[in-house]
């Protein structure tokens, strides 16, 4: 899932300075599951913003709604009705959700309430960890199902750096060294010798370095109108 967390209230009150009537829009998918932007978090944030603004002597109305999936146009289309009454939309979606709203309603100020952090999973209740950076060329087949691109601070492809100690990373001693994990996983599977192969430099053009990425599936596109 996409994991996000709410921006500090002070950042949001500064962002919303001057607006009087705001619609807070949550998303029922990833950010609901990571407790950052679902129905309840929209309620908490809206309440907090209303209170903060009342205390500032600049009351602001914050209406609340949550769509099932903020990253698809058809789910946000119904928001068009009644949107005129609001002078800004505060999205509690991920960065994709914010941009989907902004693309669909180009005349409206759409502001982000969350900091979108990573693609990851909950490792225990209340804890989420990154697992994927969407680099566009998965290497999990050679690394025992443990991603060195997202889990090694140096994105090493040929084994651990000299800072791995006691199974932990030099950057943060609470973070396991990805290459220690890879080594243990492959050794456990009797495949440790695979780590002796030198992995060549990566082609990062499939990653963010190639600019915004796009996937086209011709079999799924609508046929050209003239052929229908």
């Amino acid at each position: 899932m996409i994991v996000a967390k709410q921006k500090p209230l002070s950042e949001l009150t500064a962002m919303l300075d001057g607006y009087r009537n705001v619609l807070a829009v949550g998303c029922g998918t990833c950010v609901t599951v990571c407790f950052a932007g679902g129905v309840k978090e929209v309620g908490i944030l809206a309440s907090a913003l209303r209170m903060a603004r009342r205390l500032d002597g600049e009351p602001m109305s914050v209406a609340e709604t949550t769509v099932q999936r903020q990253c698809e146009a058809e789910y946000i289309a119904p928001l068009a009705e009644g949107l005129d009454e609001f002078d800004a939309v505060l999205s509690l979606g991920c960065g994709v959700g914010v941009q989907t709203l902004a693309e669909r309603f180009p005349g409206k100020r759409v502001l982000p309430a969350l900091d979108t952090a990573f693609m990851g999973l909950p490792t225990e209740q209340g804890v989420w960890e990154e697992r994927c950076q969407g680099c566009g060329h998965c290497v999990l087949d050679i690394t025992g199902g443990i991603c060195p691109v997202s889990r090694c601070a140096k994105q090493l492809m040929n084994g651990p750096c000299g800072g791995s100690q006691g199974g932990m990373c030099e950057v943060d001693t609470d973070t396991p060294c990805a290459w220690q994990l890879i080594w243990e996983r492959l050794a456990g599977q009797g495949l440790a010798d695979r780590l002796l192969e030198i992995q060549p430099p990566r082609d990062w053009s499939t990653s963010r370095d190639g600019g915004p990425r796009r996937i086209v599936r011709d079999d799924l596109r609508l046929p050209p109108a003239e052929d229908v």
Partner: protein
Amino acid sequence: MDQISAPAPAAQAPAPVRRFKSGSNLERMLAAGHFAVTAEIGPPKSHDAEVIRRKAALLEGCVDAANITDNQTAVVRLSSIASGAILVGQGLEPVVQMTCRDRNRLAMQSDLLGAAALGIRNVLCLTGDHQSHGNHPGAKNVHDIDSIQMVRMVKEMRDEGLFQCGEEISGGGPPLLIGAAANPFADPFELRVHRLAKKAAAGADFIQTQLVFDMSRFREYMKRVVDLGLHEKVAILAGVGPLKSAGMARHMRDKVPGMVVPDGTVARMEAAVDGVAAEDKQARREAWRAEGIRICIEQIRELREIEGLRGVHIMAIEWEEAVRPIVEGAGLFPRPAPEV
């Protein structure tokens, strides 16, 4: 040593035969079978070339080549290549260190060509300390390629005259002796020898290790290295360094990732100031430093007995004055001239 023989000269005057990969002094010393000595110079956090010249002067005659660190511990310092060029001008051979943290493959190759053009003949390929430990923790790190991929890239540039993309380098590749680092004390221990094997296979000519204090673990490591025959593929130089104080010994033991300092070494440093008045800071400092140099000399003497080891790399951090007494004390002074 692999030797690349040039095709027989066609005409009259025999062209100089390129018998060495780089022709560097370090390469010649290793080829001649001498126990090599390198040391480390940390460039200043300023543009003061005099600092480099002063440090270089302290090493002249004591070492076969001097490493120049590249933004060591992720702290911005005078460029390693510029420092290397200053050393070349002074007649002290540099080993320019280059990390994967700060440069992508374009910048690396460009800088390698530049280094060679400035007369630099040795490069040490490193991953680089993480920027979170340095003075720009908010910086974006690069890590386009890793240190093993870098070793291979430099080798292909040098031996095949090819850029990493496969394009030809006009006029041939840069003559650089390729070094890499190894940390026998990081984890997982079993993987450390494999990683050295990968660096050798990628084309490293020499290896400089992390600081060795734990002699028994290092012997175990070297035994595995020799069992795999890696010592014949790559020249291994053990990292050593004088401790400056008991506090430094404890810090390295307790706080530095990938470093093992035995309690016995810490105890020796602590005992060095026995009988010295606590308020006599100067006397304590001198007692500690003298003991640090003594321990380092003893270590080098022990290391020379280890099969497969080809030299030592002395890291006297911000204490380059210590190098000469260490080299002298270890019986490695004066440095022999390479016969070839």
